[in-house]
């Protein structure tokens, strides 16, 4: 996977679900069930992907090099051997930052027009 900026920009905008997955992985490596829980909590129940949809999105992020599979993280001691962990790649972080910046720019434009409160 190339890490050039233009490659990262090509992936924008991220889908709602993808953004949430990357956000969930922001705290460190995680597995499917936990990612799902995290998304559900953070979106207030609005987003609640079924396993198939979740993994479909994970695969796309995986294929595009935004996340990678890791062997079980060291800090987790008690766990099921079958769990599959993902974490953000540096490229993924950059894409996430670009997307966040894009949203930020939109938001500040809205603030200037006083469409939202500062």
């Amino acid at each position: 996977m190339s890490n050039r900026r233009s490659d990262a920009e090509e992936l924008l905008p991220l889908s709602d679900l993808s953004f949430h997955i990357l956000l969930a992985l922001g705290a460190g490596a995680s597995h499917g069930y936990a990612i799902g829980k995290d998304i559900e909590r953070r979106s207030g129940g609005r987003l609640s992907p079924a396993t198939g949809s979740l993994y479909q999105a994970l695969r796309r992020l995986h294929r595009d090099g935004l996340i990678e599979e890791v062997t079980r993280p060291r800090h987790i001691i008690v766990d099921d051997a079958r769990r599959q962990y993902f974490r953000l790649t540096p490229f993924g972080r950059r894409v996430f930052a670009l997307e966040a910046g894009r949203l930020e720019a939109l938001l500040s434009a809205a603030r200037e027009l006083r469409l939202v409160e500062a």
Partner: protein
Amino acid sequence: MADLTRLYRHWLGWYTRSFRDVYGPGMIQTFGERLTEARDAGKGRVVALVMRELLSVVITATLQRTAAVAQDVRYTVRSLRRNPGFAAVAAITLALGIGANTAIFSVVNGVLLRPLPYEDPGRLIRISEVDTRRGWEMGFSPPNFESLREEATLLEDVAAYRPTSVTLIGQGDPERLAAMRVSTRFFELLGTPLQLGRSFLSEEELAGAEPVVVLSHGLWLGRFGGDRDILGQTIIVSDVPRTVVGITAPTFTFGSETPEVWLPQEFSVRDVSLRGRHFLPVLGRLGPGVEFGVASEELQALASGLAETYPETNKNWRWAAVSLHRETVGGAQKPLLLLLGAVGFVLLVACANVANLSLARAESRGREMAVRAAIGAGRTRLLRQLLTESIVLAVIGGALGLGLAYAGTKILVSSIGSQLPRAAEVGVDWHVLAFTTLVTLLAGLLVGLVPATQGIRLDLLSALKEGGLKGLAEFGRRRLRGTLVVAEVALSLMLVIGAGLLLNSFWRLVNVDLGFSQESVLTGRVSLPASKYETPEQRAAFFTELVDAVERLPGVESVAAIEGLPLAWFHGAMLTVPGRDDEEYLLQRRHLTPGYFRTMGIPLLAGRDVRETDQAETPRVMVVNETLARRIFPGENAVGKHMAWDGPNQVEDLEIVGVVGDVRAFGLDADVEPTIYLASPQVQPPESMGLVMKTAGDPLSMVRDVRQAVWTLDGDLPLYEVATMDKLVSDALGPKRTWLVLLGSFATLALLLAAVGVYGVLSYSVSQRTQELGIRIAMGARRGSVLGLVVRQGMTLVLIGIVLGTAGAVGLSRVIAGQLYGVSATDPATFGAVALLIVAVALVACYLPARRAAVVDPTEALRYE
């Protein structure tokens, strides 16, 4: 719990393997944890979760599969782009095959498969009266029709119809139009409401009722400008002022000629009394839920009842019903299915050709395949790739073919439309599209499976080593290519034999002795309206005057009038011979004026022609044809004999005054029937007669003068059905010519494809054997013997194909037998000639690669590889 997890694991099988292998365990784990959570929350949550998860798997798996196919297709398109020659040849070959199939199927669909364009058409039947002694199907007599209408309980509706033609005057030149006389309930029976106005009332069937008319939608738009106020107005139809009461629906039609004018079928008092005059075709509609067979039985019973009540007229008559669909399209069924079979063969030949090409390509791509296999592409994956390629080719071919078919169908309908029932209904609809899709996929599978079964049996090691797909599978593949060539030759041989047989019988038909000379003969028809020419004397006088007037025209050598021209229709008549009471003869009857035989070049064999002096008040005379004389008066002199005809008014005693040569009057391939020719002024002179004119120059240059001659006598009479006799003869051959041209084109196509196939296989074989051939030449083999070697290899396959194809053609001979005239379906001359033709074509196809083999440069060849 474990059960549900196992179920989930099972569902994962719907994903592609690459996805399942990587993410499957994680998904199962996630599902398991969610399940545990849901279980704690209650049974309802578990059910909801499982449903949601199932839906999600189905959707995402389908998306993945689609994406995988798309990837295969993209790969295939890239690989075909690198080899555009192969792609173009394969796609065009398939396009020809698929296009031919689509075109013929769209005709079959429009003519045979689509239901008739009426309400609930499955319940429509056509009923006729059958003379059981002769097996002749005829129309109903008016009283019998009346009985049927009153007594048939299982039929919802019954109606009579009778094609005719009328003259329309006013607004420009008088015009002759196709028309139909129909009884009341006709439009209701077919279930097609009129666009405007009303249909006919029952009282309008009675002679003397207020005359009314219904116009076709086309005529209403064309001649009357679509004016709604036409309803209630009076127009002159064949000299009778009639009130327009209705306009038909835009697409409504019935019968082979689209009627423009619809008149009520009127029954005169005399009509109602004559049970023996059979002239009314009858339609019926089965009651709801009534089986055809049950209704037929009732008809049978009614007919027997009438036979008992009226033995004089109804003995030996029964009623026969047939579905209207069969009645309408039955005649076209066999030739159309024959053509569909023929294009099926063409497609098979095309598929064999493309399969051969693909095989050669698979072989040359052996190393690519081997490499892909070596880096882990599964066997099924490679198989899928090969199948994808052939299906992509077939789809391109199918799309091109659909375009070809669209254009082809238009040309087909415009050229043979007049010889086909329901031609206007032929077009590309979703049935046709479904058929094309099916044929395309089948062709793709057929083409793909052949190289796939072989390509997959690849020997990895030897392929990598030798750079080609050689080694173990070599023998099998060569046999496969041989089999394909044999099949191509056999299939195309069968088609060419079919075309050959049609050509042979066509040739015989063209050379049939018609019994008359059609050269420089112009024909036309004039009909007299009964209202203006009421008496027989007036009608006879008009035609006598007309013949005289035309005879005076410069450029007309001789002229006569006859009721029914050869190759057109005729009247029948039952005659008896005095003294032979038990024998009745059904004969063709034609009224004519003197000079007809001279004008048409029909030889007078004995006695005399009718004369101008044979008038209404003189003794009745007739001229008979040779067949009648021979059949009814064998070994005697027919001239001077008398026959009795139970004519329209009374029993007429007719004396034979002359015998003329036979004429093929009822079609080129029909037997000559016994015929009588009556002097037109005697015995009910006809209202409508055809003119035949022998002209000095181009017959068509006379049309204007003849028309003027008619108008000098009566300005309201159109001269119609104007044509040269040459054209009538040629038209009579029309359907045969069409079938011949179509089957001939398909046979030629198949033959060319087969020749290309033979050429391709030999070319490939020569290129593979360059080294071996080089060695042979280096060792001193003469070039001639190398040439012979290659030709022999090809011709062996061709000869096997010819043997198998001949056997197949004999097996299929029954299929075509009905379309032939004067030639047997296993005619040895045709079979032999076709085999020779195939050998000749195949020799050329073999010679070209063989010559290349013979000029192989040994030093080059040995350096090869």
